[in-house]
């Protein structure tokens, strides 16, 4: 198992390195310097600014200086908000996005797994069709459509829930969490249904039934673990998707999180901010992919012993 984690870690390092390098040069290759927009900048002020942001150095020296900063966890100053560092901005948004993502993931897992398992127990009956049709709607209803529709219905017509903000008014966390989590609940439902159907058709499920186990025990003890491995493996990609989804959801609901900052930085051409956020989010995504792969492998005894460097 340790060897497995190590090999995946070794694979993650070049990925993060590629991300840093590609992002850095992409951003630098962008047409138009960051201060071109400000018309009234005096040449000497501009030169001072460029020196402050190290734009006067040759490109490769800028790159190595940036790598050196990164090694110390320093993402540099923001172009747009002088005086604030990218680190500060990121860490002010991180808790909000993390909380939103956590609720969304919770919704996705609880609703998705329940619906998927439920559907798999009686395939091709109403108990299967109804949750799976809902899941299909979830997949075909993107967050940027679902969000406004939910706001329209629950916020504006029914006036049950607040339509924007985060943590200011009670209940304002409900709509954003649902908006972000719905599509993933749908994916999880489909994945867990397929996974459970696969496992429930295995010979060892018949063995368990032949032993006289009650059906709930057959499902919970013998089928669930294997059936949910695909769901665990999906959590990594789902995390990346949730982050991207937070761009939209935080914009719709005006939530001061990482996603909104990123989109704003993109529009403001705040290059250090874009660079810093990309590197940070990418590292998070790579880390989560790693974690979900490891978790999925850990659930499989054969893989677990194979990579433990043990006897077999």
């Amino acid at each position, binding site marked *: 198992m340790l060897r497995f984690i190590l090999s995946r870690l070794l*694979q993650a390092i070049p990925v993060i390195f590629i991300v840093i390098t590609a*992002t850095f040069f992409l*951003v630098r290759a962008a047409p138009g310097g960051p201060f071109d927009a400000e018309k009234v900048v005096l040449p000497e002020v501009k030169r001072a600014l460029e020196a402050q942001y190290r734009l006067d150095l040759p490109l490769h020296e800028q790159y190595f200086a940036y790598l050196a900063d990164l090694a110390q966890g320093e993402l540099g100053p923001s172009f747009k908000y002088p005086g604030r560092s990218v680190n500060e901005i990121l860490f002010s948004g991180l808790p909000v996005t993390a909380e939103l993502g956590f609720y969304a993931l919770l919704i996705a897992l609880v609703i998705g797994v329940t619906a998927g398992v439920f559907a798999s127990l009686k395939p091709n009956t109403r108990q299967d069709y109804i949750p799976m049709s809902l899941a299909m709607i979830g997949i075909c209803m*993107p967050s*940027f459509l679902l969000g*406004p529709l939910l706001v329209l219905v629950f916020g504006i017509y029914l006036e049950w829930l607040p339509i924007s903000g985060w943590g200011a008014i009670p209940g304002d966390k409900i709509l954003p969490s649902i908006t972000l989590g719905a599509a993933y609940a749908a994916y999880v439902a489909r994945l867990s249904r*397929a996974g459970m159907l696969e496992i429930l058709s295995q010979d060892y499920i018949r063995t368990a039934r032949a032993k006289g186990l009650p059906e709930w025990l057959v499902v919970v003890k013998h089928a669930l673990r294997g059936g949910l491995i*695909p769901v665990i493996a999906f959590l990594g990609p789902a995390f990346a998707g949730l982050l991207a989804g937070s761009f939209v959801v935080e914009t719709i609901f005006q939530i001061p999180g990482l996603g909104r900052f990123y989109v704003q930085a*993109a529009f403001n*051409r705040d290059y250090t901010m874009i660079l810093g956020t990309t590197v940070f989010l990418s590292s998070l995504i790579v880390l989560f992919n790693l974690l979900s792969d490891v978790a999925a492998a850990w659930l499989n005894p054969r893989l677990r012993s194979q990579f433990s460097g043990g006897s077999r």
Partner: protein
Amino acid sequence: MTTLDSTHVTDDLLANAEEGASLWQDAWQRLRKNRMAVAGGIVLVLFMVVALLTPWLAPYAYEAQNLDLGASPPSGDHWLGTDVFGRDVLTQIMYGGRVSLAVGFIATAVALLIGVTWGAIAGYVGGRVDAVMMRMVDILYALPFMIFIVLLMVVFGRNVLLLFLAIGAVEWLTMARIMRSQVQSLRQQEFVEAAISLGLSPAAIIRRHVIPNALGPIIVYTTLTIPSVMLLEAFLSFLGLGIQPPQTSWGLLISYGAETMEEYPWLLIFPGLALTTTLFSLNFLGDGLRDALDVRGSKD
């Protein structure tokens, strides 16, 4: 080189034989029994025909405005209403659909071309070539592409061509993995070994024995890639990073609609309906094809 295809030879022997049902025919029969998939297919064909003929079918010109009218709810003149500039919503949706569908199909075609070629080579050659090629795919796979596309669009401006390429570049990875695992498992099939023992050349083996059998999963996955590509385009356009005016797409229309939904909900609902209907159709068709072609859960 002599061709091995013998299907065009017909005479008594074949004429007197019972007709066999190929797996394709069987699959077609199964697909036809799946009502949702058939409905999806019909809707899709309908939308594509409308998209192709939009300049002739659209009730109004794309640029036509009626500032005096402004935003109006659905009526006899404007079946789906008008937007704040008095533009006909139905016309906007039809032109937007051209772009959305084009992005979906073209980007998927890019992914298909790169992915299938890459996967087929890796799978058939095997060994070190395979290891290197698939390791590259693994590394690219781990890249957070959504963020990268946003970055690309920010840096290089909102260029439709770039959008095709960027989306195609993300989606080919899965295609390559599926194709490789197909080719690899087919290579170990006894009927391919039998073809090798017969002395068939590798090219003939790929053409006659591998590709026809790998086609099913590729068709299914292609059908399911189109909606995810369309979603991606709509997502970017919603954020203002995709399609730019004067062009329009469903994502962009939804984004405008969301801004004014309080007063003019039809501006959100109809473009949303167009997008979800298309996504539904593609997903149902894809699921139906998966069942009909008996493709097991796609790997990875």
